[in-house]
């Protein structure tokens, strides 16, 4: 899949990765030619450790009410799912997708990492390793390989998960003037001897001097939406340029292009809820609201031309939080939590969980929801069945030494 890659650029990208690159240059692209099949993959990273037991409360678990105390009592009733589970009342549109069979919930899911550091856990989540900092590139970057499949980050910086051999596009709204093409050409000449800066500038230019997108970039949140989209009940805050909803809409605009990126990565913070987690004006509820509106915006943006049918979205966080609430009506760092898998290609309307129970004796270290499903099983399932990454690559290069972690069947 690589004949069109200019050897100089490959060298350049190698220099960019520096010591982080683990793999020899000879490996071919792992993902099947995604652009031909038109399949799309979106990863949404929830940074800060989403409390899985608030987002997806196990209201039918006999220990739930006692352990969660005030956090187990919702102002409006949670939205029923399969078995003992429900969705937080803020996740209205996600619940509608569940009802349409487009959203699956995975519970008691987590990383092989069992400590409670955000920074280490996010490194593991994104690198695809078992221990923090053993890998310097990302599992999605490695899965995309160096073939024609490309990734885009809706962010000013490239997240670790997308770092691999291939160049990565990034996009974020701008409030500054557009530079002239002449100036850019001169800067390019000035960067002839600095391959790292030259590569970054070349990618940026390709994104920004693409007429239609540039026009939208200028407009921020006033950019036109895909015809047929419904407007969202998004408050002023979530329509800010750079808000999750705006980024999700923009991601959809990139993904529907026939030659657009195969994978997009978005992130949303605000999940590190140590205090007053149930406050209706607090960070947790606001983050859930943004997530719900953003996922709906993504769906709307992709539904128009049918791309949604060929899309899988995974929503994951670095860890869940403790089962018991802490002393300040919040939750401290834990391990197991919840993840969402959604999209037109997903066999949804179900909760996938090997439920360990919430009683103290069933908890990890007496504190956390026990992880019974390895998040890598979810990711491997999507990469195998949706992006058609070969099993040997998944067990080795993408998630090293993970043969024992079997991919989950998630697709319709």
């Amino acid at each position: 899949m690589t004949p069109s890659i200019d050897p100089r650029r490959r060298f350049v990208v190698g220099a960019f990765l520096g010591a982080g690159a683990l793999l020899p240059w000879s490996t071919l692209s792992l993902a099947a030619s995604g652009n031909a099949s038109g399949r799309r993959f979106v990863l949404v990273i929830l940074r800060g450790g989403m409390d899985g037991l608030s987002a997806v409360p196990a209201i039918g678990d006999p220990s739930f009410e006692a352990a969660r105390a005030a956090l187990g009592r919702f102002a409006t009733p949670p939205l029923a799912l399969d078995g003992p589970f429900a969705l937080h009342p803020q996740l209205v549109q996600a619940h509608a997708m569940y009802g349409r069979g487009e959203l699956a919930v995975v519970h008691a899911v987590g990383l092989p990492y069992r400590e409670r550091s955000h920074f280490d856990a996010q490194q593991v989540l994104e690198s695809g390793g078992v221990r923090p900092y053993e890998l310097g590139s990302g599992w999605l970057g490695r899965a995309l390989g160096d073939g024609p499949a490309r990734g885009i980050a809706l962010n000013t910086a490239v997240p670790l998960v997308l770092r691999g051999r291939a160049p990565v596009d990034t996009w974020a709204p701008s409030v500054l003037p557009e530079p002239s093409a002449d100036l850019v050409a001169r800067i390019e000449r000035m960067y002839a001897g600095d391959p790292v800066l030259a590569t970054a500038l070349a990618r940026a230019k390709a994104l920004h001097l693409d007429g239609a997108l540039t026009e939208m970039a200028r407009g921020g949140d006033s950019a036109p939406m895909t015809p047929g989209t419904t407007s969202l009940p998004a408050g002023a805050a979530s329509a800010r340029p750079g808000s999750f909803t705006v980024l999700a809409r923009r991601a959809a605009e990139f993904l529907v292009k026939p030659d657009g990126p195969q994978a997009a990565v978005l992130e949303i913070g605000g999940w590190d809820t140590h205090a007053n987690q149930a406050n209706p004006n607090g960070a947790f509820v606001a983050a859930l609201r943004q997530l719900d509106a953003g996922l709906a915006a993504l769906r709307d943006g992709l539904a128009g031309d049918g791309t949604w049918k060929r899309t899988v979205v995974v929503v994951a966080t670095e860890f869940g939080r403790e089962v018991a609430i802490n002393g300040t009506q919040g939750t401290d760092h834990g391990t197991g939590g919840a993840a969402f898998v959604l999209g037109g290609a997903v066999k949804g309307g179900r909760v996938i969980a090997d439920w360990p129970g919430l009683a103290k004796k069933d908890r990890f270290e007496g504190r956390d929801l026990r992880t019974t499903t390895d998040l890598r099983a979810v990711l491997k399932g999507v990469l195998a069945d949706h992006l058609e990454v070969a099993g040997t690559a998944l067990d080795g290069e993408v998630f090293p030494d993970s043969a024992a972690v079997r991919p989950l069947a998630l697709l319709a």
Partner: protein
Amino acid sequence: MSNAPALQAAIAAHRFGLGEPTLEPLRNDPQGWLLAQIGPADPARGSDLPTTRDGLRLIAAERDKRAAARNLPPGTTLEQSLAGHYRESTLADARSHVASATLTARPLMERLQLFWANHFTVSLVKGSARGLVGAFEREAIRPNIAGPFEALLVAATTHPAMLRYLDNVQSAGPQSTVVGRERRRALRAGEPARVTGINENLAREVLELHTLGAASGRGDPAGGYAQADVTAFAAVLSGWRVGRDGADGELPFDPNWHEPGQKRVLGKTYPEGPDALRQVLKDLALHPATARFIATKLARHVVADEPPPALIDRLAAAYRRGDGDLPTVYRELVRSPEAWAPEQRKLKTPEEFVISSLRLLGTTERQPVRIDGAGIGALGQRVLAAPSPAGWSDRADDWLGPDAVWKRVEWSTRTADRLGGLLDARALAERSLGPLLGDATRTQIERAADGPQALALLLMAPEFQRR
């Protein structure tokens, strides 16, 4: 350090400092120029800057507004009544932050001030720290960056901004007076207790981000602490909180919130009461893992994203030799040959890029430069608003996304449009960069279509984007 003095001067100005419009004043003794700067940071620029006391008053006023929310005039929402509550204070802080770095005559210490403020991140991103972020820098960081690390650690950990930012103000010992009282009140009122125990956020981040480094080792040294140490340290920290008015001269410590009894942290027993915190922090400051963690971060900040191991070893040894005396470490760094390698291995962060641009432009031509914190925000690094307690990244990879680079071009375009007609970018490039200026950049600046374009090219030059 066998480089020609002119090259040394350029490295001192740009890598150790924050950029200079001319190398003339330091050409004779670049190392001496740096060593003579070592000392506490200068007082922050700006008049009527909000103090911690002012910040706490502002926070109390916010609370009052929220409490009065039920009696708002018709048609007004709580959001409207709170809009702009912190605007003036936040703007004053951001302006002072940028102006202090831009106008300083001691750029080494101003760089280190930015480094330490980032190490001990307190961020506007979290509502609870609003009103106090600038005061934290001015009161806890600036005066304490040229003494023992322990003093800096104590000042940062016990400042109201940190106690609020990392939730310690809400943490109560499970056996404390306040928890017992609240339990009884809640029982009577038939509602859930509002305060029931420990919040371990500050304890964990002090260990992981401020002293020992992450327990699991990330190329940085392993800290070697366990969950039990975090919990016990959180119990030591319980009671360290700020009252409604934060009266001067009092310890921010309330015994009613403190967990009674002795605590065992990292194998050592500490007494009940406020004195234990200072003892734990002293032991953490003197811990060899802290020496190595600080040495690694400093070397990464000044020299390279992946700093030479020999340099880290020497800085850590200097740290241990001086029991955490920071000037000893700074002097070791300034005298290390690795720090003077001609190759510019560090990419400037957006903040460094904007500040060095303002220094390049503002002081040479005596043009009034608008101190524009928002400009830095547009480049992806909103002033005083790091996204997490880990602070801003100090690695080029995290700032090299194509969008980030494009925003630098846009910022350079705007800045050059404003100022490029007024100065000679060719002369400025020679004076500021000296021997760092390469032929490709010189050629492009000379061939520029006009003054603004020449200046935009200088700002975007690899020699100026890097240090």
